[in-house]
């Protein structure tokens, strides 16, 4: 039987090692599935969402409460976005902890990191589109951080916000970035990233001569594995969305009022904690950029993993890179927990 479309876009056979759950954790594939869910649910939301300051929050309420299955679609979009961030982070950690970024895959590592940044930006712009009091703090603080950048800060702020303070221009810009600009970039990079996986020899495993496991599986088998993964993650996503509604709050009435408690989205809570320490440019912009730079330099500054170690968890040859990532992850987690600790 000739392969169908989905089978066709896969290689005819691949080493079974490349598809082991315990090796890949299925993170990259799940990320692609979540992006598809996001595209479909986002497209549905676009039929009802109104990107104007007066109506944005109301249209989100309309979607949440009145449109048939609108609440479910919005929850799916929300949870898929949160899971995408987690899954992307897991994917990054897997790649570093298995030394899979080495040699010819260095460029694709950078593509993947760029995708990770795009996912964060897509999450943040999507979060702002609610335009309710729940996002007000993060919007004002986030955009004000841009202002603190020397020389280009003010121009960048104007380009991003479209005025002296957030308003209707800001909402339309964030909307356009979310549904068009960032989406387009992310789509291009995603296709490129997947293409490079295949061009670079598939998921990293040792060269054929150094492999113990020489079993190969057909693309039919591969698609089946992927479908099982999709069914399971789809079930988890559906149940999350059905039982835990996405956050919602009353619309913003006065954008300049920075009232209420500080409340960054969860993935920026570590930055929110650092902002308490002083200079907003240093702690809010420079430090996150330094963290990003260290992540980007992992394939270039740390000892390269040996080729026979590819596809092995925690190979001793790239111990330094593993330690660097563990330190970064622990610090971010600790900062988040400190900020989230209950106030006495």
């Amino acid at each position, binding site marked *: 039987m000739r392969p169908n479309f989905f089978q066709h876009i896969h290689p005819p056979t691949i080493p079974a090692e490349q598809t082991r759950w315990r090796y890949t954790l299925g993170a990259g594939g799940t990320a692609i599935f979540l992006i598809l869910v996001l595209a479909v649910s986002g497209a549905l939301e676009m039929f009802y969402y109104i990107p104007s300051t007066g109506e944005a929050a109301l249209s989100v309420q309309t979607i949440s409460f009145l449109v048939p299955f609108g609440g479910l679609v919005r929850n799916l979009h929300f949870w898929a976005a949160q899971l995408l961030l987690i899954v992307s982070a897991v994917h990054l950690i897997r790649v570093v902890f298995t030394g899979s970024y080495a040699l010819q895959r260095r460029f694709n590592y950078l593509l993947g990191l760029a995708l990770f940044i795009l996912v964060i930006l897509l999450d943040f712009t999507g979060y702002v589109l609610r335009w309710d009091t729940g996002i007000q703090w993060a919007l004002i603080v986030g955009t004000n951080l841009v202002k603190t950048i020397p020389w280009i800060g003010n121009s960048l702020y104007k380009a991003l916000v479209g005025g002296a303070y957030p308003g209707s221009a800001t909402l339309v810009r964030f909307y356009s970035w979310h549904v068009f600009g960032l989406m387009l970039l992310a789509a291009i990079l995603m296709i490129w990233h997947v293409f490079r996986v295949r061009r670079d020899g598939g998921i990293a495993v040792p060269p054929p001569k150094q492999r113990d496991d020489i079993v190969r599986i057909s693309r039919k088998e591969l698609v089946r594995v992927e479908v*099982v993964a999709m069914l*399971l993650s789809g*079930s988890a996503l*559906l*149940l999350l969305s*059905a039982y835990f509604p996405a956050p919602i709050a009353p619309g913003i009435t006065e954008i300049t009022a920075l009232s209420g408690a500080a409340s960054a989205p969860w993935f920026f809570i570590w930055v929110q904690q650092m902002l308490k320490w002083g200079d907003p440019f240093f702690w809010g912009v420079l430090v996150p950029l330094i963290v990003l730079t260290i992540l980007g330099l992992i394939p270039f500054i740390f000892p390269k993993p040996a080729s026979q170690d590819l596809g092995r968890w925690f190979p001793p040859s790239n111990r330094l890179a593993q330690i660097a990532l563990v330190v970064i992850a622990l610090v971010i987690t600790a900062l988040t927990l400190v900020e989230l600790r209950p106030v006495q």
Partner: protein
Amino acid sequence: MTNRFLLIASAILLTAIGLTWWLQSRQVQPVAITPSLTDQIEYCLTCHADLTEISPSHPVETYGCVLCHGGERLALDANLAHSSMRGGNNQSDLSVVEQSCGGSNCHSGESAEGQDHIQRVMTSIQSTYAGAIANVRYTYGAQTDLTPLFGSVAVNDTSLPSQTGILHLEAFAISSENNQFLQTFGENCLTCHLNSTGVEDSLSTRFTGCSACHSPAGESRAGEIHTLTTAMPYTQCNTCHNRGNYDLRTMTFVERSDEAVTRLESYYQPIGQFTQCEYSLDCVDCHTRTEAMGDGDIHANQKDIEYVQCKTCHGTLTELPLTMTLTDPEDIAFRLAQLNPLMDLQVGDTILVTEQGEPLWNTRLLPDGNYELIGKATKQLFIFRPVMGSACTQDGLEQSSAYCHECHAVEH
């Protein structure tokens, strides 16, 4: 990977879809209303369908809920829907009353049209409590005369020119008082004004703002009160004027200890004499809108604003009470009568008016020279006659109510 995994995964997804479907089917069906004044759909009635209409003059089809109460009109989640409500459960609290009840088409309109309720209430003695504060501060030496300087909240007179010349009151603040008694006064005694809900769980418990008077709790004094009325029974006035008293030595509020059985006993003044009409009628049957809600000026004392006397309705030996014959169908008397339709007031009817020209719209001159009055809250009919031509022998110069009490108080 065998087909078995595929089957199990499919079964799990089907279960998830089933659970989701079940949860979706349990969601409430929204009940929509599009009030004609806002023309914006709102879903409050989904949960509040059994709430009685607040008053005939605020029909829900016209006003809806959100125009007055605020809140998220589309939300079907209780927390979200209520999160942006004005003034919590009382949108008539004076801190938000302008947004809730105000506007030039509603209750902060022109004084000439009698629509400036909010401006007047804000500066009224019932809201500022300025007289009591000034008196107590004067008594304890914190000010040299009885000119009011402080109110329960800071307030400016916006309806200039001012007849009293008092244009501004600062907010009374415990922290800026040096005298310990005045500090205790601030802590314990500032409960009888429209910005306070009264002493908790007592006869004095009520709403703040407009609802302090216009949303009577009725018999039960419990549960949700969704009422606005101009037919306030005396019991609502008694939430403040309830015979409890302030003890100036301890600076505490002392609730009345006896249990009132008759209406006369429950009358609010601990000392004083009362004629029959004073304990048969409701307070609002005689006392006017201006007396209760102020005239727009900041006053120093209750006595400066209260002016209705026995003679307002009964006249004196030499003069009949003031009356007016209604000729204009747009007269405010008709509007007031419409709010509480007790009597079929007609153009051509002659009604009593106060010396300041306020219509006593629940009264009417009868062909035989007597007058009728219908109780605003009780709907009871009273027929009464003027003093002129009666056997009264009162000195013509002594015509204030105190002199009437000399003979007509129930004790005599």
